[in-house]
């Protein structure tokens, strides 16, 4: 059994006195796809920002590769092993090509033509390579966001509702690339989604987050077919109103 990549113990986080994360225990294992599902306001996006070291727990322990995560103490190389694709991509006002190469340029890569060209082809963006980012549709922009994240070959890819409001073509393409990178490169993925079908298609394990707490975390089949928590059953069956 490999050591977990992330480990959360009694982690809490509050904004303006309102607790948004209150997790007793959660792990993310190397090479797995963990889906985090739950209603809006459950704390899913906050959890992802903590896993990307963009925010930090108020109390409890979050470890990455066994090292406790504290503000200002994450070495840059470790920080750069993790990247996020957000629900609404914010792109630089330049070409698609330069947007995709941004992270590589940050890492001092002068010539990134091969990697950028390869990911552009993989995500079907060839005809848009020289287009200005502001001219893209929502689905195209999200594919660029996925390209600029995956071109970095991260250890961990965090996906925050990456296919919300996208058409079936873009959803299929994005899911295919994520699955491929997980299976071929061993990419660890944490996927936040409202879409239980997507969680079922992609994830090895699923966690249900309710009011900042992990109600249940189990293998995908067990989560959907024999949930232990009645709230999980209600969520899976679409009975949970939110």
């Amino acid at each position, binding site marked *: 059994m490999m050591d977990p990549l992330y480990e959360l113990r009694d982690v809490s986080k509050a904004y303006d006195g309102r607790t948004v994360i209150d997790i007793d225990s959660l792990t993310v294992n190397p090479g797995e796809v963990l889906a985090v599902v739950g209603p809006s306001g459950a704390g899913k996006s906050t959890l992802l920002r903590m896993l990307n070291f963009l925010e930090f727990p108020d109390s409890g322990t979050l470890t990455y590769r066994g090292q406790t995560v504290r503000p200002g103490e994450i070495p840059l190389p470790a920080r750069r092993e993790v990247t996020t694709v957000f629900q609404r991509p*914010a792109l630089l006002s330049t070409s698609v090509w330069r947007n995709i190469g941004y992270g590589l340029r940050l890492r001092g890569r002068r010539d990134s033509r091969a990697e950028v060209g390869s990911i552009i082809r993989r995500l079907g963006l060839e005809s848009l390579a020289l287009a200005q980012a502001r001219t893209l549709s929502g689905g195209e922009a999200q594919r660029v966001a996925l390209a600029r994240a995956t071109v970095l070959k991260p250890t961990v890819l965090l996906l925050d509702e990456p296919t919300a409001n996208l058409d079936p073509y873009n959803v299929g393409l994005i899911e295919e690339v994520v699955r491929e990178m997980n299976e071929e490169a061993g990419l660890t993925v944490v996927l936040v989604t409202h879409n239980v079908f997507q969680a079922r298609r992609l994830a090895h394990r699923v966690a249900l987050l309710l009011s900042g707490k992990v109600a249940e975390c189990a293998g995908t089949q067990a989560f959907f077919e024999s949930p232990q928590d009645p709230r999980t059953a209600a969520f899976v069956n679409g009975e949970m109103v939110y």
Partner: protein
Amino acid sequence: MDAIWAGLQQGIRLLFSGDPAFWEIILLSAQVSGIALVISAALGVPLGALLGLMRFPGRRAIQAVVYTGMGFPPVVVGLAVYLLLSRNGILGSANLAWVPDLFTVPAMIVAQVIIATPLVVGYTMSAVSDVDPNLRLQLRSLGATSWQATWAILHEARHGVLVALVGGFGSIISEVGAVTMVGGNIEHSTRVVTTAIVLETRRGNLNMAIGLGMVMLGMAFLINLAVTQLHGKGQ
């Protein structure tokens, strides 16, 4: 009307005559306002970026000060600098080596820096605030350090920042009240275009006043053309 027309013709002739007194005034104006703008940019762009990007206690109070500064009448700035630098003023009486004397070019630069800096801060803050607030977080998630993310956002807001600089320059090159009060309009020393126009008009020397006025109009046109172009590029 004839006098104005004749003044206009002679003013145009003066423009191409290479008159040393005429060009000395124009070059001094460009020098004073150019140096003031560089100092204002060095102070104003980082402060504007900070106010546009960061949330911290006292930010609103600083913003209120900046907005007030943007509307400051230049003549009031001139009066304040005059009172500070005069021999009886707080700084003037202290005999400090770094404090400029009144009626010198450095005193005029100080006044213009005080006029231009709030404009540069305010416009930079506005330009930076207009950049998608999610961008910073997303660049950080791609591995940008705090400085790299800030630089990228300034780059995104570059057209607005350039407009801030051009606007700041326009406000000081065309200003007359403060430079008159702290510069004194001394020939071959502190006489700039705006103060010279006032003087020559009072003397009835309309040729010189119109010639200088045309240069000012030309500069104003070029500045506005630059702003328009930059706005167009930013769209």
